[in-house]
């Protein structure tokens, strides 16, 4: 009986992995453009990085401000190894390079973690910040390893061919990255199932009780930290393979902030949260980044609002809606949601248009006309200013009114008999 159910469980739990593998294989045949494959490669790297970051923040409760360092160090070493392989001092096929990056990340995390994981909370955050700044500053000084301001670059195609593949096209690189994304995700999932992975959650939630159970919280944190460093190193090597160049920009505080942002937007409390976060963040960065130079401002504001109003992230938003679905009262929400949709959209478009308009007048004032949402108009006329302001104000006012209805409907839809509200 147990044997049967275990076998059955193994089959049913392997289904999501097989589906993901199939999707990863099909994707490049759906989005065939060179641009979209480049974006997908970037998404893959960000996924590994964000998931490794979530091992710290989401599962271990450790807030790091310097996670990009482990990715960066892994990446720098990977580029150096790439150059050594090119000069034929070493034989290493390219698909194994991420392992090198991972081991470097692991090694570096073992050193740093030996003292930084002694405490969680503010002290850990400050040490990570200090290390991040230190390494970023060292990038400029130690030119032999970091290459100074211009960084170091390599050539991935010079590695010995793997089954005849030389990784010249983006598509070949995509499959390499996809393989490592799936493998790393699987390993990270296995990690959460180990006793240490489970204890990491316990240490996050209540370190004192975890100590009483007989686990050293410092040891648990240390193991999680090293594992996170390992996967960050893998992400770094994937980065090195994809871009063939690493600079100081890839491991500074700004980059660490982007990792935090991607992870948090996705949702830190869920295993798959960072995956959604990485996809959304990269799309925002690449697609909106092409449209406007204010994308960092928008993502920053979205991030702040999210920390304030939706601390569980996007995955948390989905998970929240499972309750009314299970209670069979999702229908109650449809009407208020559809009511708030239009005013909300008007408010959003109006605000963005105003922000862009002001930006255009302030910083590109010499050009009289600007294009926004595929419409060209005169920035010196009154009409756009009045229209956008009206959209913002009216949209905001109506959204406020309908938001109350949403809140009421939400309370009704999630109300459980006998539970205190």
């Amino acid at each position: 009986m147990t044997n049967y159910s275990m076998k059955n469980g193994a089959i049913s739990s392997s289904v999501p992995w097989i589906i993901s593998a199939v999707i990863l294989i099909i994707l490049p045949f759906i989005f065939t453009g060179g641009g979209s494959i480049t974006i997908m490669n970037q998404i893959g790297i960000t996924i590994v990085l964000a998931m490794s970051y979530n091992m710290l923040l989401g599962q271990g409760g450790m807030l790091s401000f310097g996670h990009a360092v482990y990715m960066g160090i892994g990446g720098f070493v990977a580029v150096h190894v790439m150059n050594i392989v090119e000069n034929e001092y070493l034989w290493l096929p390219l698909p194994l390079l991420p392992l090198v990056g991972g081991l470097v990340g692991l090694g570096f995390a073992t050193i740093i973690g030996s003292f930084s994981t002694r405490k969680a909370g503010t002290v850990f955050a400050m040490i990570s910040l200090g290390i991040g700044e230190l390494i970023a500053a060292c990038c400029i000084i130690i030119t032999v390893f970091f290459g100074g301001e211009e960084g170091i670059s390599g050539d991935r195609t010079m590695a010995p061919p793997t089954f005849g593949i030389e990784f010249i096209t983006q598509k070949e690189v995509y499959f390499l990255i996809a393989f490592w994304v799936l493998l790393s995700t699987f390993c990270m999932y296995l990690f959460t199932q180990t006793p240490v992975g489970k204890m990491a959650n316990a240490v996050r939630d209540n370190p004192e009780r975890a100590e009483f159970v007989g686990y050293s919280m410092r040891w648990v944190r240390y193991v999680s930290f090293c594992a996170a460093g390992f996967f960050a190193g893998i992400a770094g090597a994937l980065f090195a393979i994809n871009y063939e160049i690493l600079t100081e920009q890839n491991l500074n505080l700004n980059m660490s902030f982007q990792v935090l942002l991607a992870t948090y937007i996705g949702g830190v409390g869920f295993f798959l949260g960072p995956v959604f976060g990485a996809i959304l963040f990269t799309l925002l960065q690449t697609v909106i980044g092409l449209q406007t130079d204010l994308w960092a401002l928008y993502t920053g504001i979205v991030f702040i609002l999210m920390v304030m109003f939706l601390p569980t992230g996007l995955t948390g938003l989905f998970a929240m809606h499972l309750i009314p679905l299970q209670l069979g009262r999702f229908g109650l929400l449809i009407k208020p949601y559809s009511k708030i949709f239009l005013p909300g959209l008007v408010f959003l478009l109006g605000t963005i248009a105003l922000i862009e308009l002001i930006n255009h007048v302030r910083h590109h004032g010499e050009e009289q006309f600007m294009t926004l949402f595929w419409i060209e108009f005169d920035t010196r006329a009154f009409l756009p200013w009045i229209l956008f302001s009206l959209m913002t104000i009216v949209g905001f006012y109506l959204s406020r009114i309908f938001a109350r209805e949403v809140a009421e409907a939400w309370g009704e839809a999630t109300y459980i008999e006998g539970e205190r509200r």
Partner: protein
Amino acid sequence: MDLFVINIIDGLIYGLLLFMLSSGLTLIFSMMGVLNLSHAAFYMLGAYLAYQISVITGFWVGLIVAPILVTILGAGVERYGLRRVHQYGHVPELIFTFGLFFVIEELVQYIWGRSMVNYSSPESLDFIAFSLAGGTIPAYKVFMLLISVGIFVALYYVLARTRIGMIIQAALSYPKTVEALGHNVPLVFMGVFGVGTGLAGLAGVIAGPSLTTFPGMAFLLGSIVFVCVVVGGLGSLSGAFIASLLIGWLQTFAASYNVGAADILIAMGYEFPKDVYYHPWRDLWTLTLPQIGPILPYILLILVLVFKPNGLFGKRET
């Protein structure tokens, strides 16, 4: 010797400037238990607001008005942002202030552009105060010194001698008891956060003309200020004061003495390599003290956190 005296004065000015930021940060941390990572962003905001006001009315109005504006903004951030995030715990609070830093940085670039702005010291202070055997000290630096010392004295007076200071000090150690005595602790929190960020704003106003006002100024000073606070001991005002001065002098002296690693290595009996730019140890041979000056505070930070996690003067567990 002359260089030494000039450096002592320069380091003192820089250290006191750091203290203006780290004092507010320490007060906020000891009250609310949250390290305000956006603190330096308010410093930058102070400089930019003062610049904008000085364009219209001149320097002196900006000196008064800009810190007040920053205080109001800071109090608003506490009231409408941080207080809401507080319920989720300390880690989200840190994340919130970290995000706020980047948003303010982006906002400043959005409003004032990505290059530096021309914010300069007033003409009435454009003379040399005194000269010291070759080196000179401009009057503006003396003015900076006076303002910082004035702030330090005022802060000390308020905290140690007034009723409000007593409440703040009591709330530092026993917030629950203070609340039970009938004081409005949330209001005290808001006030302390506002005043703390306002002090950072004032620091920005007086530092803007001498350290140049540009979008990277917050980043440049921000992490150094955290180093001061952590090295001095989180929650210890006197620790923050001593650490600020220490780091001020450390950075000033490192920047002005051009001691190279090559000198030391040659003194130790090694031979200077002929083709230094292709030598595997070229970075070591070309390393100079001004080069490693910027990373000295971080090394200090890590050493202190490893060997004395409470900081030099901190008593509080973090």
